[in-house]
């Protein structure tokens, strides 16, 4: 067997390893319904901040606890306990992705990714209120 063949086999084996490890490490997107049926398993939930959600953050009591209500893509609302400081400007977020799991019936998250109304996809409503008044 030539060296190149041995190398080829190693490359193929490692590549399979790469694919498997990515599939194993990949998280899963889920809705709250699925999260509730799988306590202790980590999921990423995509949704929005619930309207009129109570947003509590009292750093004097606990710097690393921040709670809010979130509505997932199926419209199910659930309280999220985020163990970290409240992200600046959280109220403005259009979409949030939280990573966490169900523990004792509560959803505990350790990661939040939020999308603010960026200039790329805003609806221009706020920007043109002035214009309406003028014309």
């Amino acid at each position: 067997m030539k060296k190149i063949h041995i190398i080829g086999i190693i490359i193929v084996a490692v590549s399979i390893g790469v694919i498997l490890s990515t599939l194993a490490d990949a998280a899963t997107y889920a809705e709250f319904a699925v999260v509730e049926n799988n306590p202790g398993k980590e999921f990423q939930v995509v949704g929005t901040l619930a309207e009129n959600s109570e947003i509590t953050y009292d750093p004097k009591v606990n710097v690393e606890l921040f709670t809010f209500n979130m509505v997932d893509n199926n419209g199910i609302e659930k309280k999220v306990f985020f163990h970290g400081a409240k992200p600046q400007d959280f109220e403005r977020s259009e979409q949030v992705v939280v990573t966490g799991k169900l523990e004792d019936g509560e959803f505990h998250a350790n990661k939040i990714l939020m999308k603010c109304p960026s200039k790329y996809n805003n609806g221009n409503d706020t920007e043109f209120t002035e214009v309406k008044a003028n014309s």
Partner: protein
Amino acid sequence: MDIEYIGENIISGQLGNLLIILSFVCSTLAAFSYFKAINSSPLDGDTWKKMGRTFFLIHVVSIIGIVVVLFYLLFNHHFEYYYVWRHSSSDLAMRYVFSCFWEGQEGSFLLWSLWHAVLGVILMKTAKQWEAGTLAVVSTVQLLLGSMLLGVYVFDVQIGSNPFILLREHPDMINLPFVQNPDYLSFVEGTGLNPLLQNYWMTIHPPILFLGFALTLIPFAFAFASLVEKKYTEWLKPALPWTFAGIAILGLGVLMGGAWAYEALSFGGFWAWDPVENSSLVPWLILVGAGHLMLINKVKPNSMLSTYLFALFSFLLIMYSSYLTKSGILGETSVHSFADGLPGQLIFILLVLVVAAVSLLVLRYKSLPKQQTEEDLWSREFWMFLGALVLLISSFQITFSTSIPVINAIFGTNMAPPTEANAHYNSWQLPLATLISLFIGIGHYLKYKKTDKKQFLKDTAFSAIISLLIAIVVATQLQFQHYYHGLLMFAATYAVVANADYWLRILKGKIKKSGAAIAHIGFGLLLIGALISAGNKEIISVNNSGIEIKMNENENANKENIMLIKGDTVLMGNHFISYEGREKEGHNIYYKINYYQLDDNGEYDTKFQLRPFVQLNEQMGNVPEPATKHFWNKDIFTHVTYADLDDPALEDPNAFEEPDTNLVRVGDTLFATNSIIVVRGIDKNIDLESNNLQPTDIAVGLNLEAMNVKGLTFEAKPILVIRQNRLFSISSEVENLGLKFNFKNINTETGEFTILKQEKTSNASDFIIMQAIVFPYINILWLGCIIMTIGSIIAVINRIRYPKLKS
């Protein structure tokens, strides 16, 4: 219904549009002419080549014209143009106007095209017999990129997005009432630049990065042209300097992105395996592989298929990267959210290029030079080839994991990116980096074809032992947490030492052939810096006050943040830090954080002040920006994670909280949020008159001494007055500390005093939540980056100056 709009500058946009069409048409004609020139007879070929040149030069001039017009519109705040309105505002500092230019998709394609055009002209002047072939490819790519700027509709399909579309004609705006107002320009204001991009790095990072992107096109063009012309080995030599220039510039661009993230973003580090970072790192890795394969195949064309694949795919991966970042497919997986810009067209361009390159390679596969003899195990080419394969695996791993959203889109799966991105990527990339470093270390001591084993062992043993010692010392001194950190430390040190040894001992320190050795030293240092600064980074803002830890029993708790009330001092690492208050300057609120150390006398000695800030931005959200203190051997990174943006002083600066009652004796201490109060003793000699008391009153004062965190003391003396069997007290206030005391009673039997302590509400309400991280030896990373760039540039210059030089 024609409205006469006031104040619009229509002519500039029309000129811009004319130039866009001209540049598109000319790149098409240049591509056609140059392709014709390849296969024509010498006489016809010359005519076609001349035509190609003319068209390409007109194309270059038009691209420059488009850039000038767009800058002109941005500089003069012509908000009648959508792009200007979208990406700038009149209150924006002029130094950011460049960032406005390339913030949008149109501007970034334009910048990219501009670099292609400039490189194309250099190629035209230097490529000689390769001119027709390479410029045919460059022109074709230019016409594809140019189509991204057209902004025309063909059967309801939008092709390209035009930077000169008028605000009132943009599809999002067309139904808005302002369109009916002829004088709309008098009140329309631009939406401004994304606050994250208002940073000096964003002025220099994108042009360098895009120059790096553009440079990958040149090896692609040479490889493609050589396949068309069936001249399989002659292209390696002229393409080499371009490839190494690309390695230098693209590498610099990627690392500058890391520097920007480190300085301006708040994730705490220079690298986060973010999809956008990954997708520009991968083409660099492949380009490095291509450069090294080209070197060995220039000597002996034994692995031409691999060389072609690497040379072609570096550029194709740049195209894939621009699809990933600009199509919106990354969606919720990346913080860098870019436009949902024409994904269909981007896929189309990507597919055209991939299909063309791959099918041409398949077509020519049979006639490629075949391997003559098997490589010797003791040859340089064997190990360089293996090195390229390691880079390939590294690239494959990064690309595969980054492409999860694409995999979801194709297979309908529902995967999310790994939660622990760093752990996921590092588990692969650390061992691969270790392997590569070892290869870099031995590379120069291996000869082409066959190496004398004894000589090899003699040459390399010395640097191996030195490196092992260094690695052991570093790993024990810095207390490495994982054995594989130690392995990488050894391998990277070996890469540095072996190359330094080679340069100084074998090359005798001469510059002429030293490019490769110096670049490899830089790469080794870069890895060492990355390993130590990231592997040994220490979050010093750990919450270590007992109360909070109890609340934090949840295992998910991050425990990385700490609350600082104004005036508070907390021990973090080997510094005491205190929050001194906030200051508003322009759009920014600065939070002043002092770092102290105790001097020999036990006094607080201010070492430095950091001012992380929050940039207020109504339109796009407020953006916090960290501040970092740089020392030669470490950085202290300080970031305000959360702060009330309203000025607490406005609430009511003089309001006091509810008092708390304390029973104390002489010598006892009391605690306030910002100070320690010691009860010094009783003062019986109170001057009645000056306190407006009656001569019959009995008055006793209580001497209190309040010491703030910096050791400054303030005195207070509340007075207890006895007037005809009634007790009342005269309060005493320490204004500097926002404290008030009342002396309420004396218990003569126990000797205890009752005092009330009151604090100003503002004492506790001006607070920040912050994070502080120490990055040890991060300067080694930046040093390595600079040395690597310098080394690559030396290599490029020497290849151009001494074309006969053996590598």
